[in-house]
């Protein structure tokens, strides 16, 4: 008899998307970013998997305060160097993509590097989002001092390029998977789902008699 696999929970993407902003707030991402980053986080969970595990594994680092603010170390037409100062692609990815697109919109092309950043998992979303707006965005880890995901994360440096006016490309495998999951839903290991839901519910406020009088 084959051993049973881990128990899973079927979850619809809108359910994850609806909960995600609150979940991101509970790992320290300010609400002004959480709504935008939630799209990235949800897409990644659907298309590639791993968002919830990432939140669990990196929660302490994500919660670090003061919040990371990226710094532009150098910028010339078509070139830039950005220091993410310990932030993640999850939290700063949309802002970095926007910066690259703004640069590319002026010079037609922008290339550079992003340092001191982690969470490579989320880059595929950024590439997909850029493609929807006719940009070709790429971020590739700088290889140095070893191989494998751990080495990449330790290095934390990415070569980035963004080209304006890229030809519309066919739907990527990730994007196709995301669209399919929109219809079918996701099977998430139960422990991951319960962790995710517990983060979501942490944003709720303890009740009291006075609090009850606020209902409406």
């Amino acid at each position, binding site marked *: 008899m084959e051993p049973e696999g881990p128990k899973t929970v079927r*979850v619809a993407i809108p359910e994850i998307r609806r909960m995600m902003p609150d979940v991101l707030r509970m790992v320290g991402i300010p609400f002004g970013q959480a709504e935008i980053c939630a799209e990235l986080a949800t897409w990644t969970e659907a298309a590639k998997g791993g968002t919830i595990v990432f939140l669990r594994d990196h929660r302490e680092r994500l919660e670090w305060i003061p919040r990371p*603010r990226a710094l532009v170390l150098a910028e010339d037409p078509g070139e830039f160097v950005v220091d993410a100062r310990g932030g993640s692609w999850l939290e700063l990815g949309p802002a970095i993509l926007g910066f690259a697109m703004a640069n590319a919109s*002026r010079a037609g092309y922008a290339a550079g590097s992003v340092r001191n950043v982690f969470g490579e998992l989320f880059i595929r979303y950024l590439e997909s989002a850029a493609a929807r707006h006719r940009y070709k965005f790429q971020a590739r880890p700088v290889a140095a001092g070893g191989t494998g995901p751990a080495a990449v994360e330790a290095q934390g440096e990415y070569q980035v390029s963004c080209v304006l006016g890229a030809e519309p490309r066919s739907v990527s495998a990730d994007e196709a998977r995301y669209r399919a999951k929109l219809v079918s839903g996701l099977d998430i290991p139960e422990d991951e789902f319960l962790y995710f839901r517990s983060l979501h519910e942490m944003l*709720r406020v303890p009740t009291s008699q006075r609090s009850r009088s*606020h*209902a*409406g």
Partner: protein
Amino acid sequence: MVSSFRPTDPSSPVTALPLPPTGGIGAQGPGWSLPNWVLPLLPDFIREEADAVASMLRPADEIMSASALHSMTASRLSFANTLMDRMVRKHWAITLQECEVKADATGYLGYELAVEGRTYSFGVFSNPPMPPDHVSLFRDTQTDFFAAFVDGPLDRARMERECAEFDRELWRGRTDEKALGWTIARRSRVFDAVVSSLASGRQPDRQLVIDSGGYLIRNGGYYGNGRMGTAAWISYADEDSPLSVPYYIDALCLYLWRVASFDVADAAARAVNKAAVRLDDDFRRYFGIGNSSGLGTIAALIRWPARVSAMVLSRELAFAYVKSRPGTPEPGAVAKLIRLLSRARDSYATALDPGAGLVEPRLTVAAAIDAIIGDVRDLESSWHTRPPQRPWCELIERASRHGSREAVELVHALLLELYPEVDALQRVQRDGAIRPLEIAPEMSLNDLCALIEREFSWALDVAFAENGSREFFWYRSEENGENRRGERPVDLGVERETFVDVAGIVRRLYDFVVSDPGPTVGHFLLREPEHMLAVARVQLAATSPYSELRANVIDRHFRASDGIRCFLTLLGLELPAPASARWVRGVFYRGAPLPAEVAAGKGSEWIFPRLPAAETEDRQESVGT
């Protein structure tokens, strides 16, 4: 009270990047052009005159202000109304297949729906009633009625499992994608009296019906689109699907509750006395389904600006189209309008008045409608000697002299009944609702500032330093996540507040960017990413008109009931009646066709029904006891 769906479909043909040249519907009023994404969605007969129609659109500062929300009414384009129209046109069949109800009105009812080649089922469980004085709240752990709406034929065992899961886990329960949603409801205070009446062989007393507020049971909310493991709306929202329009499934479940309310009452009366009379069709038609919605509605309304835009824009486009109609109206149009206005007047004259400034006094509205009926007659007689250029524009202008904004809104809404072709604007409703909230990083900061000044001058005008301007915050309680509103200076939980403060985030964004030397939004957000949400909303407002309530909702003086009313009337709620500044009650589907009529394709002009004639209640039937 209704579910929200998440429009995440990336195949949506619209995009916010890069922003087209803007021409918003802000304080400037007429003179702007329609956003680019709207034009392909317009029916030909409107697209051909897009400029003329656009020139009649009302400014967002006028339509989305707190005072305007206070007067909003349902219209032909409200979701419940367009759904009803589709149900009748497509002969939807709703059949009660199983009914096991005891004398205390507890039991089970199973419905099957044959809908445009598809089969759905609706299983209702009627529980012992809550105490009569119980105020229903989301934190409740029991409910009078529970129902599951499932894709596929009726399956009693499945319905039992859905109900058991809800009983065990409430809103933390899990189902699967065959279930489209769960919904709950509660008996009205006259439910038992109606059952007693039927059991004793009499139709309900007319005064009882008036006192009932027009319903036997009250909806307590529909929860689907992925909640508890239900199917995602997008999974059954393909273009041809009967439920492809946002909120149709919510509106359908409301209708099913209405149907169930009659069947439970009838069955309970029969269980008491086999010779009980059946609730007369005239009463059935008059009764709608009650609804009560609270603070969570405000959070939903603010969370989804694209949906608000789509709902209001389609409606305003319809109003503008009607007002731009030239020449003398078709024969019969005036008579129909007067008929509808008369029924509306009578409904207002007899409706319960919540008082305390929560609505315009009902009698004031009724009197204004009466005066407007006179205006219509005057205008019609003048058309013989002076053919009108734009007759309905003239009528609206006159109507606005009678001191009731709600009456003016009502005239707008009723005029749509003369032009059923405006239903084609549902495409704007559907596609506009799934516009993504995205950022155009290429925009210059100067343009962003100009955009804020144009579209959010109302937010920049808020006196944030004034005492009470930031009084409230919204939050979700640990009790089922119930939405609540606390007072910022004294209550715990501010750090976990639900986002509703649009005016605040836009003000802070403006303060940051107004003197920022950075060239683009992309540069700015790299340094200040916390402003992403504000930037996205500002940019969306440029191309999705009417997306924002133009009110500081956390101000001490803001009546949440006005915002709740806005949402509910867009869904189709008639005669909103706030129970307080935090709750709005009202009725859906009052006067709507009954299932047999729907299946037969019959039913039109059902809004603002008249109370059944006195003879209905006098129609005594002998009862063997």
